[in-house]
């Protein structure tokens, strides 16, 4: 798609755990356990998975929003913004502040948290972006106006307070805020989950238009597979803190290899379908005490003896398609 060879973000063997030590009870929740992935330029990468699969923690780790008790135990997160490289966990706070919002921005669920509830919307723009768009205020606001118009948002939304806007409108404003500096990477954590179906469709279309125009890369986290199907170019599926399958969206839906992914896709209800759907027994494991070996083996219909003993590595089985499953890539004899 572009000439850039280096990925925008490269995550290597990342491990991030929550370690709590309260009143003599020590708990270690292995939220992200040895995850490696990369996102290329001008690409929408989706992260799918259910609750407590670790995707939100992975996103926080990539965004650098780490605070104890969440700590990075190993691995690295490296960015490349058009030649400007940065290793997130080795960089100085100044470097990180310089890239934040200018090269890396985020859109979160429930954007009430992003927009200051006691200030008007334009103030949030000033707070976030004026450091990077170092222009006098009048010119800055002009830039913001143009940006909003390009996104089909009425400029008088700037004068409103966040609570005066509807949920969908707030989310659109949050997207405008995240893109005003034209960053190379946007991280979106369940931005449409709390929205109504019709509103969600509008916001998703807006995200797609923005991405196409700015050629930003986007990491889009949601548990809703239908959203992934409509938006993302590539998809990574997480289960219990590990990445278990990754491929182009089209390939994942057409030919899922991992038993969990197949089940996930098969169990999605569709209008027009009345047949009873297959249910999967059990529940996602607790990350404080995960099963040994492959974490899916207690619920897997194709589990073998080796699955409880060794962790299946994430291997490439087809062009751009990686799977971590012994049923797909039989373990070596040795």
């Amino acid at each position: 798609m572009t000439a850039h060879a280096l990925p925008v973000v490269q995550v290597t063997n990342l491990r991030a755990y929550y370690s709590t030590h309260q009143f003599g009870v020590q708990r270690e929740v292995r939220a992200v356990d040895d995850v490696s992935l990369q996102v290329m330029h001008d690409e929408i990468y989706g992260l799918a998975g259910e609750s407590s699969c670790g995707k939100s923690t992975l996103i926080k780790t990539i965004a650098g929003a780490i605070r104890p008790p969440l700590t990075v135990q190993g691995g690295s997160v490296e960015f490349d913004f058009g030649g400007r490289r940065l290793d997130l966990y080795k960089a100085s706070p100044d470097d990180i502040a310089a890239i934040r919002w200018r090269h890396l921005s985020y859109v979160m669920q429930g954007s009430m948290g992003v927009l200051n509830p006691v200030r008007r919307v334009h103030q949030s723009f000033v707070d976030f972006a004026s450091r990077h768009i170092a222009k006098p205020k009048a010119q800055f606001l002009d830039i913001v106006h143009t940006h909003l118009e390009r996104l089909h948002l009425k400029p008088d939304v700037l004068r409103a307070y966040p609570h005066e806007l509807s949920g969908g409108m707030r989310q659109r404003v949050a997207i405008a805020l995240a893109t005003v500096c034209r960053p190379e990477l946007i991280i979106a954590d369940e931005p449409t989950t709390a929205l109504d179906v019709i509103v969600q469709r509008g916001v998703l279309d807006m995200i797609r238009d923005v991405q196409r125009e700015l050629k930003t890369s986007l990491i889009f986290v949601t548990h809703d597979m239908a959203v992934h199907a409509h938006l993302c170019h590539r998809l990574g599926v997480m289960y219990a803190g590990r990445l278990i399958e990754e491929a182009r969206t089209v390939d994942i839906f057409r030919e899922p290899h991992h038993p969990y992914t197949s089940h996930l896709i098969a169990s999605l209800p569709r209008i027009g379908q009345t047949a009873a759907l297959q249910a999967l027994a059990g529940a996602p494991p607790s990350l404080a005490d995960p099963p040994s070996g492959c974490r899916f083996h207690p619920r897997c219909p194709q589990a073998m003896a080796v699955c409880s003993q060794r962790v299946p590595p994430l291997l490439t089985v087809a062009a751009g398609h990686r799977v971590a499953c012994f049923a797909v890539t039989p373990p070596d004899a040795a």
Partner: protein
Amino acid sequence: MWTVLRDLLRHNREFAAGVCLLGIVGLVAALSALSPYSPLDSFVVPPDMPPAWPHVLGTTSRGQDVFWLLTYAIRNTLLFGFVVALISRLLSLLIGLVSGYAGGLVDRALMSLNDTFIVIPLFPILVLFYFVMRDRMSWASLALVMACLGWAYDARLIRSVAMSLRTREFTETGIFSGMSMRQILTQEHLPFVLPIVFSTTMNNINWSIGLEVTLSVLGFTDINTPTIGSMIYWANQHTAMVAGIWWWVAFPVALVVMTFVGLFLLAISMNEFIDPRSRLGRGMQ
């Protein structure tokens, strides 16, 4: 329960310090049972003697051993504080929970009552009470009056918690499981309210002891019963500070400060522990 206390002692410095301080204070209060002198007697020992063995904290101008007098004083003061706190907690829980849960007219009526009590200026009322009751005043009646004046702030606090709990879905589940209002308040809502009650209890004890000391120092209580406040009252009557009998004032003050600090430390450390969210964070597995 004991493992919980042991964990707290081991890991929480504030709790350990609070327990230490209160332990010392409690020990002193308990020692009153062993006192060789009755606290109401005077001139049983040589007066105005500085701290030295056998009178380890000195003696007063009225010929009383400071240490043994202090044991009675702190015992009475603590007792008073606990009783006031207990009665006022019960009142604020009852009114707060019912008001928050029932809503509507009941809530409005109770809160009007509540606000009336908040507005009442405490000190003038207590002084007035003393002047009206004079010789008929007893510690029990004073405790009752203070309890009646001390519930109002916390009732509102508890009411706001009760109101938010009312809208939570598990209250509905409780209702649809057949629970009556009384059952819901005591079984479902009380565990959430208790942390607040606990920390306000500590504050309340501090407040009531402080008020008692103030009143006694000024002579507005029965100053013949030994309490921390009355000790200081008598010390002032005998101009102890001017006369150089510093131990008469210093030791009661030190002990009551120790009580305050101990209770405060206990309140803040137990609060973190009892808080439902941190309890869940520790996990029950």
